[in-house]
């Protein structure tokens, strides 16, 4: 079995340099690759194009990279939780491409499935459609959206093995499997790294062929954005 293991986040991101296009998994702060984000902040790579559903919050996740002005362009669907992001966007310091969430996910999927483009009805008749090819199928209009072309995809999984197979946990799965398929180089950080053979092949979410580097992550904070609870029934 091919061994994909690297020592840690620093080694995993060693060849990510200024101007790279990177995908980062996660929805809100759920399932984000915390270790690699921290390593990118330490490395201070700049002029990055980041493809990620959200942009973190001011002091966590991609927000840490924004604060240091490492991001030239952000491609996201929703950025409402990050005040610094909104400030940089409204002042024109940051280039932003806001795209529908399903379009974002499906453009990842297309890249991972070897398809150059998709057709989606999302955004037809809105400013999202500007400059895009529209095709009519069976009486309904669809936009042609291209597969993403990302140098790196960085994902976070619950468990992974030395062969790069990944299993995600609960809704921290979100964008991680489709981004894992979409990177030219895919880096996976996992909460628990095991030997090949220890994970049941029937339960693998992402086959190791899509993963180039894997490492055991550490010190996960797993911050909760909106802690909502109900009172215990007495």
């Amino acid at each position, binding site marked *: 079995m091919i061994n994909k293991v690297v020592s840690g986040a620093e080694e995993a991101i060693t060849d990510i340099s200024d101007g790279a296009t990177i995908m980062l998994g996660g929805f809100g702060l759920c*399932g984000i690759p915390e270790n690699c984000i921290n390593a990118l902040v330490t490395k201070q790579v700049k002029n990055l194009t980041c493809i990620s559903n959200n942009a973190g919050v001011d002091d966590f996740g991609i927000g840490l990279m924004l604060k240091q002005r490492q991001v030239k362009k952000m491609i996201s*669907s929703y950025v409402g939780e990050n005040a610094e992001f909104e400030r940089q966007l409204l002042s024109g310091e940051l280039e932003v491409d806001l795209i*529908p969430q399903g379009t974002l*996910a499906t453009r*990842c999927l297309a890249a991972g499935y070897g398809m150059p483009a998709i057709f989606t009805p*999302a955004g037809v008749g*809105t400013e999202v459609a500007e400059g895009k090819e529209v095709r009519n199928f069976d009486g309904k209009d669809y936009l042609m959206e291209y597969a993403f072309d990302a140098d790196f995809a960085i994902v976070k999984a619950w468990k992974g093995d030395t062969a790069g197979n990944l299993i995600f946990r*609960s809704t921290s799965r979100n964008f991680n499997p*489709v981004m894992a398929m979409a990177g030219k180089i895919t880096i996976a950080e996992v909460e628990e790294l095991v030997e090949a053979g220890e994970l049941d092949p029937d339960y693998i979410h992402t086959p190791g062929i899509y993963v180039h580097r894997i490492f055991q992550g550490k010190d996960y904070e797993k911050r909760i954005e909106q802690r909502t609870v*109900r009172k215990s029934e007495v």
Partner: protein
Amino acid sequence: MFSKEEIAQRIAKEIKDGYYVNLGIGIPTLVANYIPKGINVVLQSENGLLGMGPFPFEGEEDADLINAGKQTITTLPGSSIFDSAMSFGMIRAQKVDLTILGAMEVSENGDIANWKIPGKMVKGMGGAMDLVASAKNIIVAMQHINKAGESKLLPKCTLPLTGVKCIKKIVTELAVLDILPEGGFKLLERAPGVSIEFIQQSTAGRLVVEGEIPEMKLD
């Protein structure tokens, strides 16, 4: 005039047994509290969950288990988890029976705007554009008039659009309205104590009033 909770309660009456339902952020989220007893529905959360349960008990929050509003939630017996592409796949393929979402503006031909105020607020569309473009059955939960007293039910939206000709039903603090295929807000029900004249004044778009307009009932 209805409170936000009452708007949610009125919308809940539109939910039928066996429905898969996607609830947006804001008033739509409250609808989950009023689903009639004896009706089986499955709530879809577009970050990748079918079968969204209630908030967890204190101390049982799981950072890996959230809804599209980033709130901690729970699963239920029969829940399933999937990735974001599949989540929007089932939305695009119209497997979800009903979508309930909020709006800043709706026009009399069914256009909706709810994601951007140029120069002021740029949060993004999230999944709203995908939902309105694909859902066969959308109910908008919104305030009829904004804080400045201006109507949000317009002849034409002034804000950047989220979707075109996609809204068919609206529930506000004043009224329940359908959007007619040929355009126009058809008044179906009015909130208790609210006059047709007041609804007329509060609706900038074309309001169609035919026959008796009953008061909304919540039970």
